[in-house]
Structures are given as C-alpha cells and as structure tokens.
C-alpha cells in the first residue's frame, strides 16, 4: 500500500464530488416526487390506478439498476421518435440518462417505504378525524401524511445512502463522478488498491454525514413522541 498514491488520488477524485452530489440530489428529488405520485395511485382504491403503480414498482425493484442505466443510455436512442421528441434533450446526455435511471429506481423503492408508513398509521386516528367531520383529503394531509413521513424517515435515510452508492454506476456511462475519476486514475497509476480504498473512505464519510443529518431530522420532527416527563 503506497500512501502517497492514495493521497495524490484523493483531491482529483474530490473534484468529482460535485457531480456525485448533483446525481444524488436530482435523482432523490425527482424520485421522491415520483414516489408520492405512485403512492397516491397505490392507495387510491381504484384498480386502474393502483395496478400500474404496483407493476411499476415490481419491475423497477426487480431489475438491477445497472441494467436500467444501460437500457436507458444504450437502448432508448434506438427509437427514432424518441430522438425527435423533447425527451431527447435529457436522453442524449449521459448525465440526463443517469439521473433518469436513478430517479426511476429510487421512485419505486421510496413508494414502498412511504406505503409502509401510511399503512402503519393507526386506524383509530383516522376514525377520530372522520368523527370530527374531516374529509378524507383532510385526513390524509393532516393525519396520515405527517405521521407516515415520521415512520418512513429511517428507511428513507437508508434509501438516500443506497442512492449515494448507486451514483457510482454513472461512471459506466462515461460520467466523471468520483468513481469515474478514480477509474481514470487507476488506469494511469496501475494502483487500484490504493485508489479505490481512498475512494471507499470518501463514500463512507459521505454516508456517515447523511446518516447524521437524518438522525437530526428524525429527532427534530419526532419530538412529539417523547414520553411524559412525570
């Protein structure tokens, strides 16, 4: 193990941290929005909304994310109508393809996480809301959603960390994120061990950072749950 190689590689790889974060935040934002939509479809009680959402989650959770990235990046441009549509703005760019693939994937997982939260909201609370005359929309917005979010938060935090690591797959379609740069450095130095170890340390630190912030958020919005003082 040559420490100087690892230390030399570090600043170069960190130049890709911006791209890693862009992939992470964009995919997370779009994916979560998609998840909320899919969740509403799943719990709508209408089969023609719930079934497509269920099928979506099944397909995207059942296939490797790398395969999804390849299908979107290599596969979709084969369709001429796609190349002529506005979607091409996103799909001709590897960055757009990576964000799209990650977002679609995260969307499927977060849907299930949110659904778990919604299902675990106590039925009695919704009955109390109904007895007070609150409409089903009011009950969802003011009772179900805020409680479901609190319950889903730890699993959502896991999903963010998992997504952070999935962004590394973007390097397979030419993107120079941290992993992409690391691969270039390895090709130059022939020192995969040193370079990838130092890359792994960067990811671990980022994951730790995410975990810490999620703990903060949980503690902040979970304070109602504190047991009675005495």
């Amino acid at each position: 193990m040559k420490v100087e190689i690892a230390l030399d590689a570090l600043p170069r790889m960190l130049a890709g941290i911006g791209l890693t974060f862009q992939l992470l935040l964009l995919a997370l934002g779009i994916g979560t929005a998609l998840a909320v939509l899919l969740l509403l479809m799943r719990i709508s009680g209408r089969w023609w909304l719930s079934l497509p959402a269920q099928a979506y989650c099944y397909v995207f959770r059942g296939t490797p994310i790398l395969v999804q990235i390849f299908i979107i990046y290599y596969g979709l441009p084969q369709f001429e109508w796609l190349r002529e549509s506005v979607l091409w703005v996103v799909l001709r760019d590897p960055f757009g393809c990576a964000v799209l693939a990650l977002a679609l994937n995260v969307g499927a997982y977060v849907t299930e996480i949110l659904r778990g939260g919604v299902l675990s909201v106590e039925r009695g609370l919704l009955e109390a809301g109904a007895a007070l005359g609150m409409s089903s929309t009011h009950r969802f917005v003011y009772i179900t959603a805020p409680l479901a979010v609190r319950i889903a938060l730890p699993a959502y935090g896991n999903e963010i960390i998992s997504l952070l690591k999935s962004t590394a797959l973007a390097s397979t379609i030419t993107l120079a994120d941290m992993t992409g740069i690391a691969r270039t450095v390895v090709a130059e130095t022939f020192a995969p061990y040193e370079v990838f170890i130092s890359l792994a340390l960067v990811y671990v630190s980022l994951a730790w950072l995410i975990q810490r912030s999620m703990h903060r958020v949980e503690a902040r919005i979970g304070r109602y749950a504190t047991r009675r003082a005495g």
Partner: protein
Amino acid sequence: MSTQTSPIIRLVSVGKRFGDFEALVDVDLEVRPGERIVICGPSGSGKSTLIRCINRMEKHTSGTIVVNGHELTDDLRDIDAVRREIGMVFQSFNLFPHMTVLRNLTIAQRLVRKTPKAEAEAVAMHFLERVRIPEQAAKYPAQLSGGQQQRVAIARALCMKPRIMLFDEPTSALDPEMISEVLEVMVDLAGDGMTMVCVTHEMGFARSVADRVIFMDRGRLVEQADPETFFTRPQNERTALFLRQILRH
C-alpha cells in the same frame, strides 16, 4: 313542543353483518334529545358496533338509522351532516400524536367549520377549562396521563358543538385511579342536558346519570329500563346473570 319529544336518534330493525357474523340483529332504538343512555353487555355483544353505526364509523347492513332528520345512506352529504351533530369519544383516546393539545382541539374547527384561528383557540381553551386542564394546552398527547388524554379527547369532541355525544368504553383503557376524573367530566356534561349514548361498564355512572340502561347480548337489545328497575329487578335471566358477574366485586 313536538321537536322536544321526537327522537334525535332513531334505529329501526338495524342489522350489521361482518361476513358470516351477525354483530347486530334487528335493533330498534329511539333516543330523545337530552336523554342519557348507557349500554352494557358482555364483550362481543355488539355495543360498540351499535354506537359506531350511529355516526357511520360502521355501515349498517339492514334497517334504517335516522339522526337529527338525516337518514344514513351512502350519500356522503348525509354522513357529513350527521357527523357534524355527533361527537365521539374512543376507548383509546385517539388524539393526534403529532399535534399539541391545543391544535388537536382547533384543527377540525378550522378545517370543517372554517372557524378563524383566534376564535377556534378561544373555543378550545373554553372546553379545556371545562375538562379542567387548560394548563396542558401546549403539550403533546404523549406528555399527558391517560386520564388527561381522555379529557382532552372529550374537549376535542365538544369543540365541534355536537348535539349528541357517543362514548365507546371511555374508561376501559385507563388505570383505576384515572377513571373518576373522566367520569366526573361526563357527569358534568350530562348535567348540561347533552344527549349521551355511552357504552361503559361503570355501573355507578349508569346508576347515577343514565335515564335508561340497555343490556345487549349477541347483537340484540335484550333489555332496557330505567336504572332503578334495571339494577334491582332485571326481567331477563341473561341480564341478571351479567349483573351478578360484574357487580360481584
């Protein structure tokens, strides 16, 4: 005068099935405005199901239920209209855990009645004082004792200015030392002329407050009478057996 005597709640041969299980069989019941009714009976006898049908927490499967002139059907407007007249108190309190006590009391006023914030809070404080815990307004439910939570739940229902209050075993989930504080609030309410239908095993409460005590068994109303008659001269053998069992200790 006729509105005084005509029933505010009327059930005509109401039935409720859960699959093969008949929870309610041919129930007839009339409740006049201001009347205080206690329903008792062994567990699984349909008491809770009965009062939950009155505000459509459960959907009855046969017969007719009319509350304050609105018949309960699938028509959502009638259900809304009925729920506006009825407050309900649950065994497990069901306070919204992510809201302060004050917000628990104002949220429905603001969303359903569109009451302005200041007015809703004034109403909330008024009823918190009535249940004797105005100092807990800023706390979260988990910070209160069970008895306090149930009193908040009663205040929350009262904030909607209901004409009828339904109580579904309001003291069954409470530690013994907290039962009386909740019963006191209920006795208070009865003194104000509120129409009340209570499912409870608190026979002391039934004796002192109820105008009528009803005994249910296996989904049927077996017996109903004024408390004096009910407790001293029950007509039905099952009622007598039930009373012996719960009054033994």
